[in-house]
């Protein structure tokens, strides 16, 4: 389980059933978003094209963070991969709704649900 940590943003990732789970904790904004971006790029470069980003412990997400997630989605799709999100927090889901990105991302209530959905589509 790889760990990158700072006071503002903690990033953990591990593999489950062939899908790389990225657990994000803290705030994703203009200052911290580059770290998430670098991790997503690293995972894709390492050959992980099926990703689930768990945002249940994300306390803040702005358009910079949305841009990073969209960028990650584009990268995995270039390899016929997927990037799904796990989020039930209304205050985080709000920015997805405002921007219409609920239509772009698969957003699930749990990691297991995200994995099951992805597996069933294969």
């Amino acid at each position, binding site marked *: 389980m790889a760990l990158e940590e700072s006071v503002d943003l903690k990033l953990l990732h591990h593999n489950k059933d062939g899908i790389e789970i990225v657990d994000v904790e803290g705030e994703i904004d203009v*200052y911290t978003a580059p770290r998430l971006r670098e991790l997503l790029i690293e995972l894709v470069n390492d050959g992980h094209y099926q990703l689930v980003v768990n945002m249940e412990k994300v306390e803040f997400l*702005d358009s910079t963070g949305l841009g990073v997630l969209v960028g990650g989605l584009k990268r995995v799709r270039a390899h016929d991969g997927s990037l799904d999100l796990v989020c039930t927090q209304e205050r985080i889901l709000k920015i997805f709704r405002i921007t219409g990105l609920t239509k772009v991302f698969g957003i699930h209530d749990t990691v297991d649900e995200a994995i099951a959905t992805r597996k069933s589509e294969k």
Partner: protein
Amino acid sequence: MATVEVTFTPLPAHVRTARLVASAVARRSGITEALLDEVRLAVGEACSRAVESHRLNCPGEPVRVALGTQGDRFEIEVLNAGSVSATRLAGDPRREPAVVPTGFSLAVIAGLADDVQISETSAGTSVKMSWPLSGSVAAGSPA
């Protein structure tokens, strides 16, 4: 007249500080809990935009944020020393090509604030956002 004014060096690390101050002032001014997340997000967007503009166009100039009440509304103004037309957010080769359109953050702000006014002033570009105050805690309450 602004209740609180914050000035900060245009660094991404300081945007969070501006959000925290805005949340505290908004709560103290009487913004309902339901709107506080929107205030925080809108201020963050406006300050992030200002920081990006300053870093490209005028890195030595601070970003200014003024917060306060005006009648029955809570107002936040983020002053960006650059102009809207001079903002070259997509021109920095260090940046990844934009995956979201230019003006995206302004669209987010418009979706969050009850009222948004963007204007060019002699000091730069002003993004003024406002929300209604709850009736029971209006301007003038002691700190």
